[in-house]
């Protein structure tokens, strides 16, 4: 296993751990942070591929992901604050009436 494979395996592990966190945890804030962890795994894989092929497009994509992650947090946090004010809890099961 060379360095590229190691880094890709690490990226997969981080993404999967984030996905696992989103699925199994009940706290909304923890789920949001696990989504950030998934984005970090994707960024690591992009950087690894960009490094392997010596192209800039991977770095550009990383830059775009940073912006998307920032926008996501800026929008998700007010929504979570609203939900907490309405339901007085961070438990995801309390938000069951949001189902369509």
């Amino acid at each position, binding site marked *: 296993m060379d360095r590229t494979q190691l880094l890709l395996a690490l990226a997969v*592990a981080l993404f999967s751990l984030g996905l696992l966190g989103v699925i199994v945890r009940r706290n909304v*804030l923890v789920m949001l942070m696990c989504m950030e962890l998934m984005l970090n795994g994707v960024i690591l894989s992009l950087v690894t591929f960009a*490094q*392997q092929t010596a192209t800039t497009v991977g770095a550009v994509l*990383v830059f775009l992901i940073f*912006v998307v992650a920032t*926008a996501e947090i800026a*929008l998700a946090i007010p929504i979570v604050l609203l939900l907490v004010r309405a339901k007085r809890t961070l438990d995801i099961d309390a938000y069951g009436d949001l189902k369509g």
Partner: protein
Amino acid sequence: MIDGFLQHLDTLLLLVFGICALIGAALMIVLRQPMRVAMALISTMVFLGGIYGLLGVHFIAAFQVLIYVGAVMVFMVYVIMLLEVRDTAGQRYSAWLLPGLAGFVMLVGVIVISIWRSLPTHTEAGGIGAFGIGKFSVIFLNEYWLHFELTSVLLVAAVVAALAVIGVSRRADAKRRHG
């Protein structure tokens, strides 16, 4: 000999940072309090920044620490302190724990095995110093200027949407107050 040692040191540091990042990510699943989860995520991000620095993409390492740790996670920690959440009662995990764990093991297994088999082992074409901030900036603003502008539009849209959410909450408050 010193060069060889330095190259081995590089790989060793990469391994150590990777293992530390993995430990931080695993702690995020296990720990109960949101503040501790945030600290674990911050440590994972800092170790990932170290990995980017070792790979030679220093500006992404700087972005990682400045934007993710400096802005996003500080915002998150601030919100955790604002809500004063203390997860004392109730269960930590949802009913999806076992299916989630099974899916996690299968996903990691399948992808890691396919990575192991598919990629030919060869040295990286890039290497240290392949991505200077100068080269990146010139290519970024020459070829990807449209994407750059689109991200600024996305940020403006996010700010407008956040303001709209706050407006909704204010209207709901006013309605509650006036009956």
